[in-house]
């Protein structure tokens, strides 16, 4: 979704924001930021919900008991934003960190992403987009507390200083924030406020442990799936085996005879299909009853996608020019290159499921003209609207609670909100009763919304200096944006999320031509952590590595030479990587090789070195060194964690069974036995992360770890086996 960032950057400048303040029933200072957003409806996008009337519409609440409650305008699903955003606010507020409590905000206009204009997590934008917003909120709240104290002491506010939730006056006086909170709520909100210089930060830039660790370690934290409401029922849905197929008839005799089953009925599901919902007192009852359903499916008019057929079709398409993405220099230059100076490379990437650990779920209760919903959602705005639409309500009639989510990686950012629509369809039938819809792991693995399959065909002409002189690149893959509210971001039919990482490469290639085909296929697709960079970085970084090897040049030196001087973050990351990895790369044990890659995504430059050997025909990753330029690292501990683990996540597509395949319309994998993500022995044994010191605005760290790891690993394998790996997943690895 990096394209969305570009589109809306300009809008942000036109946006006015203002603060409101109110005293609360609980007492204390409660500050709410309201953004005056342009109506996206005018741009062809989804209409904004009406002006909110959802409590609580606040970001920070300084309570008389000393606690500081900070609302987080994002989903927390591992990325650490529930700690980092409060750090930013608390730093400017000079709050006592031990008193800070973070809460996930419900769906409401005020919690929309200041850049994207909807409430969401994506595009690695949580910190990048809300850094300034949370700083201002903290600084303005602090100013109001200081003004209150100054008035009581009859001194000027600038004679006061603040520290650890205390205002200190010029003559040794002091007030705790808790003693000022109620009076401060009567202060006007300052229009402007001085923000700290980075040198004054007390929390930002420090390693701060997560606020949610303990409850995630003792089993007490409630995820969406753990929700338990009085009288709640549980639902599962029998989904069609082929996307878009419909129920022709079903026999629910045995299912209904199962003790504890409350209802069985047909509901619409995604892609125009239908399914059968089972509502029971408990999950196991519902699941057993689903197994007893006898359903006749109607496949009429439904395309049965098939991976091997798609592969052939995509490879044919890749031999023809697609829609123009980039045409720089001489388009014909490639045709004049002698075969001996030409690399022609075809790459294949399969569908990938996100498979977050917490299976998808949503709870809905419908009460007359109101409804309440609970979901771990990356797209609160869309999900709330979808539930409202199904129920014939307005979005503001649906109270939408953001539940802590067990991973997501993009899977909870679905523009058609298909899980929430199913939940609303079911809850509508059981008015007054809360119903928790659970997607089983099988529903998840077979349920679509995958990273799309892709084929890349690249012709690279090599100049006399060993550098690429001409580059023709054709990409084939389904568009993520076509047919969604984001389709307006496509330009001349090109979905940037398919070509990002290639089209915007920082390598200086004079004759550079990129085009794309977007075939329509009956498989729902979705952004998967780092989106287009999942495949584009693999292609670019393996080819650059091959070029470096042909030029007999050190892979870091080659990249440095080929990068444009303005690629400052990548160059800084490569320099740091060289400094931190040179020693171990020179002393590798026999049978080990080093692999290098670098890639910029979501504004963050990353360089990576891996130490790999081959064990049991699989890559064994002994060590990874990562260098990162992400601007100011708000919480370096989180940045380190995101990179240490994010490279492990990025290995998913290298796993021997790391793919979804379809045959005759049916998904061939069902669970973690058929689709196998990385386990501990597949992950690196050690990952050291080094952050480039920076005073630049922060950029994202959720997605940028993912693209670099797979190319670095196969670049190392190429040194061990002499082979280039262009088709994923990586089934077996061995030297000839």
């Amino acid at each position: 979704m990096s394209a969305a960032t570009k589109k809306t950057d300009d809008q942000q400048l036109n946006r006015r924001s203002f603060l409101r303040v109110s005293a609360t029933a609980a007492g204390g200072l409660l500050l709410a930021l309201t953004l005056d957003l342009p109506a996206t409806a005018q741009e062809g996008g989804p209409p904004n919900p009406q002006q909110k009337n959802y409590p609580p519409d606040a970001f920070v609440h300084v309570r008389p008991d000393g606690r500081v409650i900070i609302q987080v305008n994002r989903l927390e699903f591992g990325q650490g934003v529930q700690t980092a955003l409060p750090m930013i606010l608390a730093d400017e507020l000079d709050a006592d960190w031990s008193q800070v409590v973070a809460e996930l905000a419900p769906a409401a206009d005020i919690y929309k992403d200041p850049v994207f204009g909807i409430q969401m997590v994506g595009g690695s934008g949580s910190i990048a987009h809300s850094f300034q917003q949370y700083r201002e909120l903290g600084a303005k709240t602090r100013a109001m507390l200081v003004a209150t104290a100054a008035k009581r002491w009859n001194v000027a506010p600038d004679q006061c200083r603040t520290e650890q939730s205390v205002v200190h006056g010029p003559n040794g006086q002091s007030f705790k924030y808790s003693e000022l909170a109620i009076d401060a709520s009567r202060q006007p909100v300052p229009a402007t406020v001085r923000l700290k210089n980075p040198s004054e930060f007390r929390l930002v830039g420090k390693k701060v442990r997560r606020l949610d660790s303990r409850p995630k370690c003792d089993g007490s934290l409630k995820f969406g799936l753990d929700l338990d409401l009085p009288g709640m029922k549980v639902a599962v849905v029998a989904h069609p085996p082929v996307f878009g197929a419909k129920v022709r008839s079903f026999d629910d005799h045995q299912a209904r005879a199962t003790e504890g089953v409350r209802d069985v009925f047909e509901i619409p599901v995604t892609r125009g299909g239908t399914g059968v919902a089972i509502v029971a007192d408990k999950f196991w009852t519902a699941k057993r009853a689903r197994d007893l359903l006898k359903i006749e499916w109607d496949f009429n008019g439904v395309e049965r996608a098939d991976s091997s057929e798609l592969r052939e079709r995509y490879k044919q398409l890749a031999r023809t020019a697609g829609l123009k993405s980039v045409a720089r220099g001489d388009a014909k230059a490639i045709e004049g290159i002698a075969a001996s100076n030409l690399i022609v490379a075809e790459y294949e990437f399969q569908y990938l499921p996100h498979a977050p650990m917490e299976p998808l779920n949503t709870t809905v209760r419908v009460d007359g003209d109101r409804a309440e919903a609970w979901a771990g959602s990356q797209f609160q705005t869309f999900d709330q609207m979808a539930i409202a639409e199904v129920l014939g309500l307005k979005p503001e009639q649906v109270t939408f609670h953001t539940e802590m989510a067990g991973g997501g990686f993009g899977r909870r950012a679905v523009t058609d909100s298909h899980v929430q629509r199913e939940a609303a369809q079911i809850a509508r039938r059981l008015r007054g009763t809360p119903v928790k819809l659970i997607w089983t792991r099988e529903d998840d693995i077979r349920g679509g919304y995958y990273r799309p399959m892709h084929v890349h065909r690249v012709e690279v002409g090599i100049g006399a200096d060993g550098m690429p002189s001409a580059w023709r690149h054709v990409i084939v893959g389904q568009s993520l944006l076509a047919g969604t509210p984001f389709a307006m971001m496509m330009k001349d039919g090109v979905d940037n999320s398919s070509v990002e990482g290639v089209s915007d490469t920082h390598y200086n290639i004079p004759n550079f031509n990129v085009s794309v085909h977007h075939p329509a296929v009956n498989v729902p697709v979705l952004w998967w952590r780092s989106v287009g960079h999942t495949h584009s970085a693999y292609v670019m970084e393996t080819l650059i590595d091959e070029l470096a090897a042909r030029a007999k040049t050190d892979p870091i030196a080659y990249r440095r030479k080929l990068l444009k001087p303005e690629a400052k973050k990548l160059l800084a990351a490569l320099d740091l990587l060289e400094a931190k990895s040179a020693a171990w790369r020179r002393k590798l044990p026999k049978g080990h090789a080093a692999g290098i890659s670098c890639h910029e995504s979501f504004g963050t430059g990353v360089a990576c070195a891996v130490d790999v050997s081959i064990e049991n025909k699989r890559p064994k990753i002994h060590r990874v060194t990562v260098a990162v330029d992400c601007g100011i690292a708000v919480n370096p501990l989180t940045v380190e964690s995101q990179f240490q683990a994010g490279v492990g996540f990025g290995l998913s597509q290298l796993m021997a069974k790391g793919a979804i395949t379809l045959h005759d319309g049916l998904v061939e994998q069902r669970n973690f036995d058929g689709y196998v993500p990385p386990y501990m022995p597949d992950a690196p044994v050690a990952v050291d992360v080094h952050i480039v010191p920076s005073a630049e605005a922060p950029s994202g760290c959720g997605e940028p770890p993912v693209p670099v790891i797979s190319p670095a690993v196969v670049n190392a394998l190429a040194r061990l086996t002499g082979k280039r790996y262009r088709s994923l997943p990586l089934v077996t690895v061995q030297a000839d």
Partner: protein
Amino acid sequence: MAKYQLNINGQRKEVSVDPSTPLLWVLREDLKMTGTKYGCGVSACGACTVHVAGVATRSCMLPISLLGDRPVVTIEAMKDDPVGRVVQDAWVEQDVVQCGYCQSGQIMTAVALLKHTPRPTDTNIDESMGGNICRCATYVRIREAIKVASQKLK
């Protein structure tokens, strides 16, 4: 439906459920102990790991009718377990968790490992922890936290 007398975290509990119901769902829905997680239902991810008679066990595929009188210990009891508490503290100190959903199962598996092998090697860790998926892939820090806990248990 059938009645079962259970020993959960040292307490006697009685439930009335279908005999095929896995221990996981008895814990989560009948006993309202949601610290044990559903991840796959086929013993492939380890999110549902509990200790049954002291052995790390996948509760998602253990029908309640086959539990017998074996005692069950869950993540909820770890804060009062001498090894469990040390492991949880090591997890917090090392800032292991990300989404956190798999960590109950990771911790239950790690506690079983450390009770059996107080000074595990990397290979011991790979073998014991190798059936637990962390989709965030926090494996590097899980490994470190196990080593930290092992040191503290000396």
